[in-house]
């Protein structure tokens, strides 16, 4: 087990980063594209130049080459060697480290079975699905028993369903193997689901390091709140437990059905980019549908628009892409229909 300490790390993309990661902890780095998340992984692995110091278990790693840092790195694109079969990809790290052939076979078979990829061992990466590639890449990363895992948006290229399944599997494996892990994402939901702690990064600077619910419910700066898409935080006046693990919460005049894990809570956060919008009444059977009125529009950047709507006398912030916004074609004071999915309502119980 390894704890990591970054002291005064600066380079072309980071400014004075100080960060401690505990043994076996899952630290999620969250921030927009280009914020410096991947750079921090590259600094830890020794792939990027830096000023300052990196310590593993108190030992300075600055002069240690990437090959000797004992770090497993799962790249966003998986970086599976296209000229090697799945089996050869997984055994690559063991072979270059001159492990005995029997040991290699044993370890590779273990991982193949652990990740459920027995049916593709002789295939090349070209013909694999995104989910299969992800599993193979994860097996290759784990093969040499690294002390630290660095995961760079490993689910961003997968469809949501596969990503969800693999996310849970990966989290279970990480807990089971108890490996110190740093996970990079720009997906807030992913961050809140996986993290022991979250570090919010903006323009190469760490803005806040806290437990996921602290980041969401108690952001230290306005910039962190904005970075999370300005989620709407509502105080709950009344909570009524329902069947099927659900609860009905009343926040002022707004009633919401939420997933209830049995733990008490007194507020909810609604993730702004998860709310669905329509010009017309939403007919499906999903709960939490409301008629709302548009009261404010802010252009966040070239591709994102933030709007504020009022539903049941409650103001809700919604983030959406500029394309979707243009397609909606509505103006201030006009009516709009919204649906708030279960997954977008977070309760501070983690």
């Amino acid at each position: 087990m390894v704890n990591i300490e970054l002291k005064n790390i600066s380079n072309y993309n980071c400014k004075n980063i100080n960060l401690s990661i505990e043994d076996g902890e899952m630290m999620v780095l969250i921030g927009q594209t280009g914020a410096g998340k991947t750079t921090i992984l590259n600094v830890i692995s020794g792939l990027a130049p830096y000023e300052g110091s990196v310590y593993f278990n108190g030992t300075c790693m600055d002069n240690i080459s990437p090959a000797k840092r004992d770090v497993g790195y799962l790249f966003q694109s998986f970086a599976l060697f296209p000229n090697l079969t799945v089996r050869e990809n997984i055994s690559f790290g063991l072979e270059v480290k001159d492990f005995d052939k029997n040991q290699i076979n044993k370890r590779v078979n273990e991982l193949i079975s652990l990740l459920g990829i027995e049916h593709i061992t002789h295939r090349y990466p070209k013909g694999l699905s995104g989910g299969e590639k992800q599993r193979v890449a994860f097996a290759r990363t784990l093969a040499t028993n690294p002390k630290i895992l660095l995961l760079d948006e490993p689910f961003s290229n997968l469809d949501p369903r596969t990503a969800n399944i693999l996310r849970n599997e990966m989290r279970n494996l990480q807990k089971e193997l108890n490996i110190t892990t740093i996970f990079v994402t720009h997906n807030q939901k992913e961050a809140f689901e996986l993290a022991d702690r979250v570090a919010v990064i903006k323009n190469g600077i760490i803005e806040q390091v806290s437990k996921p619910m602290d980041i969401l419910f108690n952001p230290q700066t306005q910039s962190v709140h904005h970075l999370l898409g300005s989620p709407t935080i509502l105080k709950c006046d009344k909570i009524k437990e329902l069947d099927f693990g659900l609860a009905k919460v009343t926040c002022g005049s707004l009633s919401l059905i939420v997933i209830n894990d049995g733990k008490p809570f007194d507020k909810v956060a609604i993730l702004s980019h998860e709310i669905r919008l329509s010009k017309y009444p939403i007919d499906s059977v999903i709960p939490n549908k409301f008629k709302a009125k548009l009261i404010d529009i802010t252009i966040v950047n070239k591709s994102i628009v933030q709007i504020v709507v009022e539903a049941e006398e409650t103001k809700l912030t919604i983030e959406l892409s500029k394309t979707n916004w243009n397609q909606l074609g509505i103006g201030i004071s006009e009516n709009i229909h919204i649906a708030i999915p279960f997954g977008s309502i977070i309760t501070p119980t983690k």
Partner: protein
Amino acid sequence: MNSEQNSYAPKIRSIFSVLLFIAIWEFSVRFGWMPGNIFFPPFSEVLTEIWEMLFDDLLIDSYKSSLTRVMIGFLLGSTSGIVLGVLMGWNQKVYDWLKPIISILYPIPALGWLPLLMLLIGINEVLPVVIIFICSFFPIVYNTVKGIKEVKPEFINAARLLGASDFVILRKVVIPQALPYIFIGLKLESGAAWRTVVAAEMIAIPTGIGALMMRAENLMRIDIILVCLIVLSVMCLIFENFFSYLEYKMTGEWN
């Protein structure tokens, strides 16, 4: 049934186009439609000439001379081209040093070196080998550098983090992924080597297929010239297809 027809259709069209070309050649000569040249033989006579020349030392010796020159020149040119290309593609300093020189020399056609080399080397067996070396070396360097540089840094970083040395990364990750580019160079330049050797033999070397064609031209033996051209065409095809086959064997499964 329909898909089978579809899969055979292109092959049938290709064979038919060649047969049609031969038929037009044969009958246009036999019926006197070929404008103005009484020396031009029909295809059947060329075939007979090929058959006779197969037992004649003149064609075989000329062919052997050209083949030996192509084999030695191309082997040396392509091997050194690949080695230098890998070094330049892998090491930025080597690239920075050699790129300007390669860029200056690459556009010069191989035959452009002939007068200079005739003065420096003289007219002997080394001359065509050096010409073919030059012909294959520069394009293969260029393609190999491109192939090596096209390998995404992520693959190299992934291999490095898994503990691989530079040599292992080159051998197991980088060079295999650069093979499709290297084979493009080999396929194109193996044909070019034949075309260059024949041209060099026509101009400056007294032996080989090219020299045989020039002698046939003096004797107005169009049939021999056509035999030589067919041999040249077949050799270009064999060399190019050999490298296509080798490429398929080495990269076909994963590329």
